[in-house]
């Protein structure tokens, strides 16, 4: 792995903000009938939350 390819790390607070934004967008999409993209966003949120629960982020 080159120096430019290191992992990106977020604090728990940053993860929470990202999750909150994604969930708000997903809820907006769902309410407008775009269930597919809302569903896809939820999949991303689930992955992020999984990481946050497991202590894979930096903490914070």
């Amino acid at each position, binding site marked *: 792995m080159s120096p430019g390819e290191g992992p990106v790390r977020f604090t728990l607070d940053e993860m929470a903000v990202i999750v909150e934004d994604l969930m708000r967008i997903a*809820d907006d999409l769902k309410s407008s009938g775009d269930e597919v*993209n809302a569903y896809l966003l939820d999949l991303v949120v689930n992955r992020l*939350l999984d990481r946050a629960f497991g202590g894979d982020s930096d903490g914070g």
Partner: protein
Amino acid sequence: MTASNGRWWRRTRDSWKPSRLVSSCPLCHTDIVSKQESSAEVDNVRQRLIEAEEEYQRARTDDYVTRLLRDSAIVDAHRAGLSSREISTLVGDIGQPNVVRARRRAVTRREVFPAGLLSPADAVRESGLGPREFIHAVREGRLIAVELPGGVRAFRVKDVRRTRNAS
């Protein structure tokens, strides 16, 4: 199909509007509805399955997301009490054995959660907590996740509601 090929992301909101049963599903609507004195919930599940099937037929079989959604709708239909035979009638290109396979495929897939359990995202919604508070509740052991096969984490509805009431 994956999201990365851009197909779904090119879709506009208006392109994902499931049509109504009566207008576009001549195969099944009157017969099924008249034969079964279904509860509103079963009717609702049946309607979702029909709409998922219609979208699946529009996008065709190589579209992963529509297949995923249809499999999920098949699972819901099973849970609501629809028979494999009826489901096979509702979904055009799938025989009864394949209905069972689709159900198995869906229940073992990472993103489909058994009844009584919530995905992490839905658990956050149900809890009434913000994501930050929810994450801390899990990390501090105030809310226990259920480990599903494949390392998937889910949450019991009753646990999430208890957390909501306690907060």
